[in-house]
């Protein structure tokens, strides 16, 4: 009797075990990631290891590709009949370029099954959809702001600028003190995209900005031209380092860490340029100053996440992987280890409290924003972005060439968005 019971029990346990293994998937999963920066890479490997532990039946192959190289390689992946099952990618135009061609799998069922429609705020959900279908899941985002040396500001008695006038004032004071007011490094062009985005959103409002990046407004429009008159004020006051075109963004940041520069318009990843915890005493940030108080406020918060190629050979495993990656537990780990902002609204708030910069960014930038932009080179067509940013670079060198530059950008826009 007892023996019989034991055997039956054993069978039940074994059956349940088998069922559990079935539910946890089996077979292969290929995950290609662009997380090549050391800190990101470490976290990436850890999250894969945690997934592997939770789903031992799935054999994960994790490939890390250099962040820049990934942008080109991804097209080869998608053109293949045997693409990786999971890919990292960017929300916005860059995601739409794939989803509108039917290259991304519909992952509405993953969203439903994991209850994400309740866990993610509306804006993030909209960002994840294409033609009404979920094709993307965001896993982290960061903010852009005017970063400054708070120790230098304190020594000179300077305060964070709320308005454009105050901002210009900061520029004068820093120049007088012999410190380069604003640093930028434009060798790789993209830091200038941030300048254009913010100025355009502050002068013309985010709606106008999105219409422009969508190719609906000519670059020769008088309103676009007006943006550059503000930029010109900064150039006339010699606010920028004059060697911007020689430097990449890290070179310029090094000038700031060396105490020779005051401010830098950058994403929060600038923090990593400070070593030995010095950023606690030296680095702070404020929202890009308001120029026209009648305009709604747009901010830059590029969002990174994941999608599944439509032809992914192990689609079911990939969906399990997504469920884990964008789950609450994993995102909280990301906040803890990388100081990222998690796009889920149910993330433990005490984690943010441990990173004062996140609290400040939420309070002063993100919660006050009327609209969120992804960044110039993600919001507009890649070729347009490149031509545009080259134009901004030329403008900073030769502001008098503005009309010729805008004409060139307009010719490109008319061709690219025909």
């Amino acid at each position, binding site marked *: 009797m007892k023996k019989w019971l034991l055997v039956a029990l054993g069978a039940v346990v074994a059956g349940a075990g088998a069922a559990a293994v079935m539910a946890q998937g089996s077979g292969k999963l290929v995950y290609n990631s662009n997380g090549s920066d050391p800190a990101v890479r470490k976290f990436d490997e850890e999250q894969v290891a945690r997934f592997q532990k939770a789903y031992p039946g799935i054999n994960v192959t994790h490939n890390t590709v250099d962040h820049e190289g990934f942008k080109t390689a991804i097209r080869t992946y998608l053109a293949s009949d045997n693409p990786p099952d999971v890919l990292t990618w960017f929300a916005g135009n860059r995601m739409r370029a794939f989803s509108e061609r039917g290259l991304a799998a519909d992952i509405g069922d993953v969203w439903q099954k994991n209850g994400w429609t309740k866990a993610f705020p509306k804006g993030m959900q909209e960002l994840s959809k294409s033609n009404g279908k979920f094709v993307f899941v965001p896993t982290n985002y960061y903010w852009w702001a005017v970063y400054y040396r708070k120790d230098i500001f304190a020594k000179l008695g300077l305060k964070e600028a709320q308005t454009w006038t105050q901002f210009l004032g900061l520029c004068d004071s820093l120049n007088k003190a012999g410190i380069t007011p604003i640093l930028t490094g434009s060798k790789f*062009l993209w830091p200038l995209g941030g300048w254009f985005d913010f100025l355009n959103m502050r002068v013309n409002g985010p709606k106008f900005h999105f219409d422009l990046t969508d190719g609906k407004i000519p670059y020769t429009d008088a309103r676009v031209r007006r943006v550059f008159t503000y930029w010109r004020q900064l150039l006339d006051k010699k606010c920028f380092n004059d060697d911007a075109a*020689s430097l990449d963004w890290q070179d310029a940041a090094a000038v700031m860490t060396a105490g020779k520069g005051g401010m830098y318009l950058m994403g929060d990843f600038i923090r990593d340029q400070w070593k030995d915890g010095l950023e606690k005493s030296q680095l702070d940030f404020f929202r890009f100053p308001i120029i026209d108080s009648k305009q709604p406020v747009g901010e830059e918060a590029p969002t990174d996440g994941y999608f599944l190629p439509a032809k992914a050979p192990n689609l079911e495993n990939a969906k399990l992987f997504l469920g884990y990656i964008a789950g609450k537990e994993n995102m909280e780990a990301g906040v803890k280890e990388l100081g990222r902002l998690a796009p889920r609204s149910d993330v433990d708030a005490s984690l943010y409290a441990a990173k004062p910069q996140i609290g400040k960014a939420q309070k002063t930038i993100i919660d006050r924003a009327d609209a969120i932009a992804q960044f110039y080179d993600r919001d507009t067509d890649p070729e347009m972005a490149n031509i545009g940013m080259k134009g901004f670079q030329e403008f900073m060198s030769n502001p008098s060439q503005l009309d010729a530059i805008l004409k060139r950008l307009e010719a490109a826009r008319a061709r690219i968005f025909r």
Partner: protein
Amino acid sequence: MVQTPIRTVNRQQRAFNQFLAIFSFLAVPLLLYTVWVIYPTFRTLYLSLTDWDGLPGPINFVGLENFQRLITEEPFQKSIVNNILWIIVFITVPTSLGLGLAMVLNTEVKFDRFLKVAYYLPLVLATVVAALVWARGVYSPREGLLNSFLALFMGDAAYKIQWLGDPNLAIWSVIGAAVWRQVGYVMILYLAGLKTVDAEVLEAAKMDGAEGWTLFRYMVFPMLAPVTTIVVVISVIDSLRSFDMVNIMTRGGPFDSSNVLANYMYLSFEDYRMGYAASIAVVLFAISLVFIFFYLREVMRQEEGQ
């Protein structure tokens, strides 16, 4: 009489066997060559007539539109002008410097081995490394070698010189670094050439009273003519191929002022303009072909001569 046809058959048979042997040896390299060189060449030609963006799906045929755009667009014009500047500098400066060095080092100079190695060393260095050393170590405006040196004479104004950031200077700075690399290469080619110059002929010329410049101008240099042809053609091809120096040092910037065709092609690929980039490749290919023709003709003529 009777044997003749048999012999013919034998000969035919032998020729066929020989052909078979040659073919079987060539088959593998030919196959690889077809897959990796011939097919991509024709594929590129085809893509240059499309507006393909690298994504799967139908490829639009646009005829010669890419080429029409190339001619009218500024980045292409700047790139081709820079390629021409590069060629002009390359067939004059490193060529004469390399020849000069070779002439000096071919005579009994102290430490000539060390000097030869020293001049040749830049070429052994990976181009990427050389480019980084020049960009970061020499041209960097704030702490570069060049501006620090100039500051000894000019004072702090020297730190304002943007070797790679000034649109008027950038291409010259990049070419300067490339010349530094090329000199040793040309030197080695000429040193090898000088070894083949017949010493007896030179001896005879000296007996006739030729020396110094006259000896060089009328005896040595003409005898080096085949080497010179090859040096010039190699310089031209290297100029057209120039990519890594530009890409690492300036990425063609600021605003295309130091761009060259190969780098412009690469950046276009990065922007997912596969069709457009392919059309740049075709132009580059066409220009290179002319010089490669001269080069091969010269090499073949020399080989036949031996």
